[in-house]
């Protein structure tokens, strides 16, 4: 039982991770002068887009999302609308936090917002996929000892890793090395994606390692 779930998670994570690699490699065929630093925004949105598509596809296929009570179209539309709203709100939230951290307010606002979009895709979107637009469930998962399934734990780990990655990514900015990746917000996006990939890798490993200690309360 455990192994099946972990294996499923590992393969899902592998698919997501490979989609990020594809998003880095593929556009080079179609877009001229494509590079991670040079056309950073294009790359960023490629990655974000592919993560969105693959996440939704994977979790829809796996059927992780909580079962919906009603199956009417209007209810589904309502959920979809709510999810979009939450996603937008989380983009704004991340944007605000990044500005509070010292990003310029008006200058390069687009770059800052793109970073916020990326962070939202790496964190909020997965929450939406796994937990649905249900704030109470989010609060439960992210409070101490709130995880109720392996997916909750994986969500905790990947979210934490992405945010910490972006946080660590800000450190090289003050260095006077004049490297292309020190330009705002490249180091932060790189940090966030590296953190996310680490999280994807770490989550199954960690769960496997601690499978004895993990006893989830039943709902």
């Amino acid at each position, binding site marked *: 039982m455990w192994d099946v779930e972990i294996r499923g998670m590992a393969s899902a994570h592998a698919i997501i991770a490979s989609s990020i690699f594809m998003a880095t490699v593929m556009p080079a065929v179609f877009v001229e002068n494509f590079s991670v630093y040079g056309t950073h925004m294009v790359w960023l949105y490629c990655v974000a887009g592919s993560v969105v598509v693959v996440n939704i596809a994977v979790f829809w296929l796996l059927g992780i999302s909580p079962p919906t009570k009603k199956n009417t179209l209007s209810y589904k539309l309502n959920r979809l609308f709510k999810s979009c709203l939450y996603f937008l709100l989380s983009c704004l939230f991340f944007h605000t936090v990044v500005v*509070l951290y*010292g990003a310029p307010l008006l200058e390069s606002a687009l770059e800052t917002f793109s970073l916020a979009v990326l962070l939202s895709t790496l964190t909020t979107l997965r929450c939406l996929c796994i937990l649905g637009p249900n704030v109470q469930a989010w609060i439960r998962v992210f*409070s*101490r000892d709130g995880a109720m399934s392996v997916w909750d734990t994986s969500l905790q780990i990947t979210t934490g890793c992405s945010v910490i990655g972006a946080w660590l990514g800000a450190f090289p900015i*003050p*260095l006077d090395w004049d490297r292309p990746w020190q330009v705002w917000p490249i180091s932060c996006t790189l940090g966030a994606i590296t953190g996310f990939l680490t999280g994807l890798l770490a989550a199954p490993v960690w769960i496997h390692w601690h499978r004895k200690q993990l006893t989830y309360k039943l709902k």
Partner: protein
Amino acid sequence: MKLSSSVFALLCLLCEIVSIALFLRGFFPVPVKSSFSDKNKVTDFPAEPQTGSGPNGSKAPVPLFKRVVIVLIDALREDFVFGSDGRRFMPYTRHVVERGSSHSFIAKARPPTVTMPRIKALTTGSIPGFIDVVMNLNSPALLEDNLIWQANSAGKRIIFYGDDTWVRLFPKLFMEHDGTTSFFVSDYTEVDNNVTRHLDGTLKRDDWDILILHYLGLDHIGHISGPHSSLIGPKLMEMDDVIKKIHASLISKESEGTLPNLLVLCGDHGMSETGSHGGSSEPEINTPLVLISPSFRRKAGFEEPGVLEQVDLTPTLALGLGLPISKNSVGHLIPAVFEELSLREQLRLLQINGHQLSRLLQDSNPTFHKEDGYEQFRMAEKSHGSWVKLYVDGNTSEVLSNMGKKVLKQYLEALKAMSSALSKQLGKYDMYSMIMGMTFILQVLFLLLLAMPEALSREAVVDVPLASSLLSLPFYLLCLFGSALHVLVCTSAGGPCYLCSLPWVLVFTVILLSSAFMCALFSMAVRRMPTSNKTPTKGSDWTLSELDALLLIGTVGHTLSLASSSFIEEEHQTWYFLLNTLCLAVFQDVCRKYFREQRHRDEEEDEGPLLPSSAKEGPSFSPAEELGMSPGSEKWLALATPLLTLTCCRLLRSLNQTGVQWAHLPDFGHWLNSGDHKAFLSVLASVSLVLIFLLVQRHCSLVSKIALALGLLGVYSYRAAVGNVLFPWQHSSRAVSKGTVEARFVYVFVLGILFTGVKDLLRSQVMSSAVDSGRLKSRGLWEVYSGVVLLVALLFRAHNLPTLACCLLIQTVMAQFIWKKLHYDAAQTTIMHYWFGQAFFYFQGNSNNIGTVDISVGFVGLESYVEAPAIFLTALSTYAGPLLWACHLLCFLSSQRDRAVMGLGHGSYCFALLRSIPAVFYVVLVTGLRYHLFIWSVFSPKLLYEAMHTLITTAVCLFFTFMDQERSARP
């Protein structure tokens, strides 16, 4: 020996201060100085080789110039003359540089690029030690051999107009002088008019030989609005007119048969992209040097100016005027100036310069024989001799002139080599003192770390096994070993050594202390060892919360970041970043507390016995009740507090841009100060003052409240008098005064409030009732705190008053809704206070560069410069942020009655530890990096800041200890 935590922390900090002082003494090199008689004399000139030691053999060279006018424009950057700015704004000077008979150079100023060390460098020719920057605050008379003294004693009449630093440095040496003080940085017209108004009269007269003009306006413009401001152009044109006027007058005075005149245009230092100076960026060290004299060849067009050292001007001027070169000058002649002379005269001048340099080298370097330059000079002198012999014999062949040119080249190379050898000497360190200081400070740090479990225990008492270690055998062995080492080092040391020059009693005390520390350390370490083995479970069930982890990572990370010069330059970024993360972590804690409460309200009831004890603390403990709000809104206020803090920090961050990389970005502070926005600045300042009053008056007695209100009014009227802000009924054009009366008015109230506070503190000791005494004590503390706030409000520039208001606002809301409610322990609260203090240090516009210290603060309320108060006020206003947060911590911890028992001790200990870790790490680091490229520009200023900060922390800990003693003195 049992010591309470606070006393222990204080003692450790005191030891640290001593060892840092020892380290600094060894680290900052003693300037290269000659040990012979004070000043060079005319008779000290070496004889020209092979002409015998007859009376005219060693005679002084004839002067080349009759009169010299030195126009020194403060902060004149190289591109203001040679760049596009020069072409636009200084047309006349450019014309002379390109077509006139002139020589132009880029003169490199050595860091620290601060005015006084630069003036010293220009006049003595030596490179002042770094510590001279600190002495920049007060400039005592220059006793070293210098050009001005030489000129004066040779009977030259000198006139000086400009920055009064010169008048203080060279008292009584000027025939006529008019000094202007440079501390009112906002004024950039009056200071220069004060110089120029004398110009016409002086130029007409014939009774002077040297005229020195030091123009300050450009520097002031730079400080106000940077090198690209619109004010720069008109100022440069004004300077160009001055040059034109002087040059025209010198040309008209020129007559056949007399010596030509010389006009020198130079800058003392440049200006960084932000308009400040002090560091070592290219625009700060590159200054133009233009020498204009009819005796020079006319230029055909613009040539790329050559690069030389600023100190090279000194020997050139000295020999150009026929004076002896000052003793400690390390520069060498500028060959271009003398190229029109005969070969014999040129060689003679080079020989004189070489002789002076070689003597300085002999004096300052015991291994001078090994220096290349010295050897080369000896060789050149020999060939010079044989050349002179041939010349005197009447030989005039081609061979002779070729040989002469070869000698000339030899001399020039020798001079260059000796000059650079002497400059390099400045990089020599007194390693013995440094290592001793370092060992000592490391011991103290380990002692602090080993004592952590005891110091943070409930008793807050540290047991230092000093007595037992004093009687142990290793102690005596260590003493013996130390003394032997000392004798060995001192007898074999080649260079100067501070410790060896100390009396042996003092040194022996140091060795004793160090050995005792060593033994105490060992026995404490041994005592720790078994306990950690016996109870290994104790470590594992002590879990770190996210906040603890953050505080730990932040402290360690910041300490490690000091190893990088960029992170030192941009240290504010580190602190802002950490502070933001801290606020978010606190926000998460708040969310967790209030939302968890919602979910497990019934579980919460089980913890009943814990809660009432803290809820019983009286009305002040429930902020919502105090503010007349329901407990429900308290939750939202608590949630809003970290967000408010974050917003405040973000706003403050854009108030003062600091650091290096982004310092040139426009910031709000510059916008406010730019003159057009005075009305807005006035509104902002008055709102801040009102806010300050509202936040501070809460816990004060009525008398203090009134005094505080009047004092803050006084602050505003002081700012209005100085011309920073306006009264509503006042027009912008009003005479600017020094505001001495207003400032003194405020000082009276500051002293009054402090006095009331201290009186309350003393009275609380003799009170019988513990409750009353506690209340009186916390009121007294708060009054002392509000006195400090009032003083800081007076000292802060007008645009910084919002910083102070925000500081108080954050303190109030954080204390009310976070620190009291979330039950953070004293250590956590202290670390948070420390971080806030650090961030506010940078919010108020400071950086790790000496240039950002606002020395004008030292003149608030004083008619003239008085050393002690000026230094005190400057230190206070620079460290206002950390100091206010430390004071707040003291007030906060002692108002928390349930934990005051050990809170103060814990707080004081954490403060000492937080200061020691970076300081010790930095001292060790600087020792390792002493040959780093940026050691003088980045690492040394930071070292001074660290030392000063440790000193301030010691003062704070003293106060903590004092308050803590009162507690322990009571039964």
